[in-house]
């Protein structure tokens, strides 16, 4: 088993862990974390493949850089949605 | 050199126990600081072992963030109160 294959497996593992979290919890902030873990798994598969090719694949790496920034801004929006929903339900309750 | 880096990661793995255990909020931030230091060291070793000087810049960035981010986190924690 090569290093590439090892990190491919870890990437798949992370992705599945995120999927499991997505299905097992109903807490909105944890859901956002789960989606982020899934995306990290995907990135790891891509980076492992990028490293494997010779020369190192710059297209895959550039895609992941783009993906990271998009992921963080989507996370910001999702977290704000989760927080405001939480607060609004509390306001209604009181 | 890789063995040394692996050893440092093992100590990080041991430090994980404190992260899982707590008990106080500040206790859980300790391993973050610890991972920051360990991570910087591992990056420096990797830069040497894999002959990738760019990783030294990553280490510099990690060290800078390890200095900047605790300020933000502690301020947020104080704001949360209880």
């Amino acid at each position, binding site marked *: 088993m090569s290093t590439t294959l090892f990190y491919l497996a870890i990437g798949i593992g992370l992705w599945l862990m995120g999927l499991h979290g997505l299905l097992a919890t109903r807490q909105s902030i944890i859901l956002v974390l789960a989606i982020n873990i899934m995306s990290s798994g995907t990135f790891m598969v891509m980076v492992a493949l990028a490293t494997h090719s010779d020369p190192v694949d710059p297209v895959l790496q550039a895609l992941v850089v783009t993906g990271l920034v998009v992921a963080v801004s989507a996370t910001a929006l999702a977290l704000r949605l989760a927080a405001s929903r939480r607060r609004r339900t509390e306001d209604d309750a009181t | 050199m890789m063995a040394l880096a692996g050893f440092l990661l093992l100590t990080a793995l*041991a430090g994980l126990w404190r992260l899982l255990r707590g008990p106080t909020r500040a206790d859980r931030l300790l391993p973050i600081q*610890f991972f920051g230091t360990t991570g910087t060291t591992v990056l420096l070793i990797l830069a040497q072992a894999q002959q990738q000087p760019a990783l*030294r810049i990553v280490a510099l960035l990690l060290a800078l963030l390890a200095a900047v981010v605790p300020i933000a986190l502690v301020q947020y*924690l104080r704001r949360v109160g209880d």
Partner: protein
Amino acid sequence: MTDWLALLSWVPLLAGAFFFLAGTVGLLRFPDIYSRLHAITKADTLGLGLVTLGLIMRAENWQAVAVMVLIWLLMMGSGATTCQLLARYQQDLEAPDADKEPVHARR
């Protein structure tokens, strides 16, 4: 890079690894947060310094040395500061009014 320097560099490298180990033991075994803070921020910063020293002995050019020295300085500063910040946060939690007047509130 001369051979004897590479050999000699193992001394600080291994000493650094030892201090990382010591820091981890402290993190896991010390009884309260204040002592654990010391274990993390002092022992590990020393470990980082020693490993950096070892790597400097093996560095190829002066830019690498400069970056590593800068990292080491930053880490010393951030270790000391973070230790203070976390300790003070914890202290405020435990005794919210204790530090309003006394010793360190001098202006």
